[in-house]
């Protein structure tokens, strides 16, 4: 038993190192950025919320929210626990219906679940009875094996395609979930505290991965987080939700690729956001 456990740990170590070096290879990043800039506007869909309200019974969670997210923007939402962040995300995904107001994605009103919107949950929610590849290609669209394999390669897990989800680590599971979201080339990616349960090292690795993939694919991204440093490190723009409304809406004009809490302007921004939360 001890043997098996240590073998597993060794194996994970190997995978960790592999992906740790791959994503932030400076040369590939520099090459990729200009070319992908055009793809960004082509793939991303603008999201528009008008007077959006949501109540559960008597409790009003969101009240008359107005928000315009330009195509391809990476928006971070921070706020206290229970302020309605997940509720907002579920409304944009079309999982729940708003009590009042409208949501549009691209030019279309959101009435129900959207095929070009994908949601990443806090837990990976992989189907334990499908192998990793089958999970990534869950919609079983035409040629799903190839596209699922490509998405897995994108998140650095091509070699785990035939494993059961039960043997993956937390970070690997979230990467599979990310690959699953990418397969259909969504216009909007919604992330509900997807890295909250990961350790600090894995989380930083996931930040780099998400940033790279977002640059390549150019989807509009809404990232919910309770970690202000994470928001400032990743986002183009940060909004704070308080009492069901937007309390702060602030751009993050720091050059990419960013290093977490590297310079004073980032720290100042973090302090500013924390004041409002």
């Amino acid at each position, binding site marked *: 038993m001890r043997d098996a456990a240590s073998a597993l740990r060794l194996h994970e170590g190997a995978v960790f190192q592999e992906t740790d070096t791959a994503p932030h290879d400076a040369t590939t990043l520099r090459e990729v950025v200009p070319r992908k800039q055009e793809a960004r506007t082509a793939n991303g869909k603008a999201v528009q919320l008008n007077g959006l309200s949501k109540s559960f019974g008597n409790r009003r969670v969101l009240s008359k929210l107005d928000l315009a997210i330009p195509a391809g923007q990476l928006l971070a939402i921070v706020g206290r626990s229970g302020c309605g962040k997940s509720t907002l995300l579920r409304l944009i995904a079309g999982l729940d219906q708003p009590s009042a107001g409208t949501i549009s994605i691209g030019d279309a009103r959101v009435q129900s679940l959207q095929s070009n919107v994908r949601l990443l949950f806090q837990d990976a929610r992989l189907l*334990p009875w499908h192998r990793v590849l089958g999970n990534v290609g869950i919609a079983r669209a035409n040629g799903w094996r190839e596209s699922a394999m490509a998405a897995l390669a994108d998140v650095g897990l091509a070699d785990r395609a035939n494993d059961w989800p*039960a043997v993956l680590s937390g970070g690997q599971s979230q990467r599979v979930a990310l690959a699953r979201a990418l397969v259909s080339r969504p216009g909007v990616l919604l992330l509900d505290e997807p890295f909250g349960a990961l350790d600090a090292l894995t989380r930083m690795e996931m930040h780099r991965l998400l940033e790279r993939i977002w640059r390549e694919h150019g989807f509009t991204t809404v990232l919910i987080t309770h970690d202000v440093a994470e928001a400032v490190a990743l986002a183009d723009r940060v909004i704070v939700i308080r009492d069901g409304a937007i309390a702060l809406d602030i751009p993050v004009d720091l050059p990419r690729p960013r290093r977490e809490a590297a310079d004073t302007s980032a720290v100042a921004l973090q302090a500013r956001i924390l004041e409002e939360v």
Partner: protein
Amino acid sequence: MAHQTQLRNAGATALQIVASWALPIGIVVEWEIASRSGVISTRLLPAPSAVAAAFWENLRNGTLLTHAAISTERALKGLAIGGGIGFILGVLAGISRPAETVFDSSMQMLRNVPHLAMIPLVILWFGIGEEAKIFLVAVGTAFPIYLNTFHGIRTVDVRLIEMARVYGLGPLALFWRVILPGALPSILVGLRFSLGIMWLTLIVAETISASSGIGYMTMNAREFLQTDIVVLGIIVYALLGKLADALTRLIETRALAWHPAYQPAATREAVP
């Protein structure tokens, strides 16, 4: 060092096998001695060697296989009908609230009726034909499968269902790829319960009224005081039951290969 441990392990397993067989073999030997020396009357209990001889004889002339095949056929027909109905009703009640209100309370009430108590009625309805036995087996096997299918579907992780909806799975894909696999461990537990009930029901039904099958073979032998055949029938029932159990285990390890409890490493750890 690893090599030595392996050897020691192999030795330990061999010893375990010998130890676990020692008692049954000892009993059979004692029994044989007791029969031969006349302590046990062969009219009440035949010697093991007589049972073995009867087994060989009936195997050669084909009677054993014919009767066993007929019994198995009845058992499987009853299971297919009863299990099929239980499964379908379980799925319906599991995925739709209206269906649950229609079926569930009736099924919960009916399941408390011991189905063997229906034998007199069943004989009135069907006589002693095939239908009577298949009907009884079907009634007996339907409930465990119904209950476990219903329960299995209701306990599928709702977060997975929500995820599947976000990722665009339609109702059919949702059922085949999320709900059914999620309920499968529970459904297979129901199947194993049903298999036990299936053989038990069939033994009773064949013993009471039949003109073929293992139960008939033993009842017929009783009239001629052929105790060796009676014991042989009991052993054949036990073997058929064991076979069915082994088959479900095989299905489980195949269908639930994804389940951590059924992964090879885990099972090796679990069996000491």
